[in-house]
């Protein structure tokens, strides 16, 4: 970074002469040190996973969750400064509630992502604040059913409402990633944090946009595997795998964002470790071949 020490990196709201906001770039650094988070979107839903670095052996295993729910149908996971992430989640919950108060329906995932993108961007504008030290992955399933207005009584005709377009599908799974600059995009697969490079490489190998879509259960297994692949055993501390998922109304979570059940998670993790073991065995074989040359 050529302009470090020139004073342009000391505050938000001041650009460097070459058009950069250094505070935002430093915030990205904070993210790059955090445990890997990923999100996978498939036809049946969304899976979120995080490599929760165990900071101390005195912490209770399985406690202090890193993935949070917003409303009922949206999940948030983030890499970087955990307190910033907590605040992000608080704000997201406030946004979801204010949406419900006005429109009496759950907030669509896209609208939440948009509002939170705007919120994070605002923290890049002012002298008095610093940008968020997190990149957040927001996954949700907007109901594909016709949901009633909150508190609704009564009903329409028993033959169903007239004039609908029956071919048009509504709702579905959504996945967004929001960066410290406030930039956000929709993704098929998203990764951030320490192991993002390896994780992204793995995600790109998956067929997430094609017609042959993977099942939600497969996505859970892939998520577990990718977190393990992205983890650097030699250098990194121990970690816990935390995973959550959201399916449609007819799927396993019935449209809600919940933790992946223990049995499924453990099975996915066992498979992940097995696969990892196999590939490292292969590597060892190859290297021993080389020795013989």
């Amino acid at each position, binding site marked *: 970074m050529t302009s470090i020490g020139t004073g342009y990196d000391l505050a938000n709201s001041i650009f460097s002469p070459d058009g950069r906001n250094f505070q935002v770039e430093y915030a990205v650094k904070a993210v790059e040190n955090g445990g890997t988070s990923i999100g996978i979107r498939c036809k049946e839903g969304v899976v979120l996973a995080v490599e929760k670095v165990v900071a101390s052996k005195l912490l209770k295993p399985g406690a202090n969750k890193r993935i949070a729910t917003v409303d009922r149908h949206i999940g948030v996971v983030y890499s970087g400064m955990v307190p910033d992430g907590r605040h992000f989640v608080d704000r997201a919950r406030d946004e979801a509630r204010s949406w419900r*108060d*006005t*429109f*009496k*329906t759950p907030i669509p995932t896209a*609208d939440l992502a948009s509002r939170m993108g705007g919120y994070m961007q605002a923290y890049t504008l002012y002298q008095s604040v610093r940008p968020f030290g997190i990149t957040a992955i927001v996954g949700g399933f907007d109901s594909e059913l*016709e949901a*009633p*207005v909150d*508190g*609704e*009584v*009564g*009903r*329409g*005709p*028993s*033959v*169903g*409402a*007239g*004039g*609908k*377009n029956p071919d*048009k599908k*509504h709702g579905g799974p959504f996945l967004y990633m929001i960066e410290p600059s406030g930039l956000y995009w929709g993704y098929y697969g998203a990764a951030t944090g320490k192991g993002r490079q390896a994780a992204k490489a793995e995600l790109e190998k998956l067929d997430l946009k094609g017609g042959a879509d993977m099942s939600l259960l497969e996505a859970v297994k892939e998520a577990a595997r990718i977190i393990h692949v992205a983890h650097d055993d030699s250098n990194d501390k121990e970690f816990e795998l935390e995973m959550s998922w959201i399916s449609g109304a007819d799927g396993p979570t019935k449209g809600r964002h919940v933790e992946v059940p223990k049995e499924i998670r453990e099975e996915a993790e066992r498979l992940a470790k097995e696969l990892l073991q196999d590939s490292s065995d292969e590597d060892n074989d190859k290297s021993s071949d080389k020795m013989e040359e």
Partner: protein
Amino acid sequence: MEFGTSGKLSEDGIHLDMDRLKKGEVNLGTSIMAITFKDGVILGADSRTTTGAYIANRVTDKLTRVHDTIWCCRSGSAADTQAVADIVQYQLGLFAMNSGKPPTTQTAASIFQEICYANKDKLSAGLIIAGWDERHGGQVYSIPLGGSLHKQPYAIGGSGSTYIYGFCDANWKEGMEEADAVNFVKEALKEAIKWDGSSGGVIRMVVLTAKGADRHLYLPDTDYKIRHT
């Protein structure tokens, strides 16, 4: 701004719309209705506005657009319902711009309901919200005086509606063809106009479907037979 002591709910509950009015206020002592049918919804209303027994406007338009294919029927105080409709029209316009897609009837009904509920002690507004949207098709919501929200296959409101509960219940059919549905609304409003002194004038209708909004007008001097516009 003095509310009469007669503002309480009388035993028959019906003349409450009148009692809640402020002194000298213009009243939509009205017959309004909205129905679902095979392709969407139809809104209908008479055109009489009164101050006491005097007809302040004999060609009123009580069918108000709040978005392209979301409309409402207004009854109660003209000033209150216009103010509420204006607010909702603004909110829905904003919503459409922000989200890049048209609002649903539910969205409109929710905003209407919140205003009517939060200001229930100040408003006299009996509203029927009807709209068509791609996701939910045609929907009808009724918001009576207290600000509750009721989803219905069809809704009738205003002082004239009391005279047509029987007619509507007996003749209502689900999933009617457009021509039959228009006829149902017309016949119902004709009865309401016949028996209710506070209803009268022309019959206005708006048909909301995937094709958009289509206005109908029927005049009393031709016995509401011929469609104008």
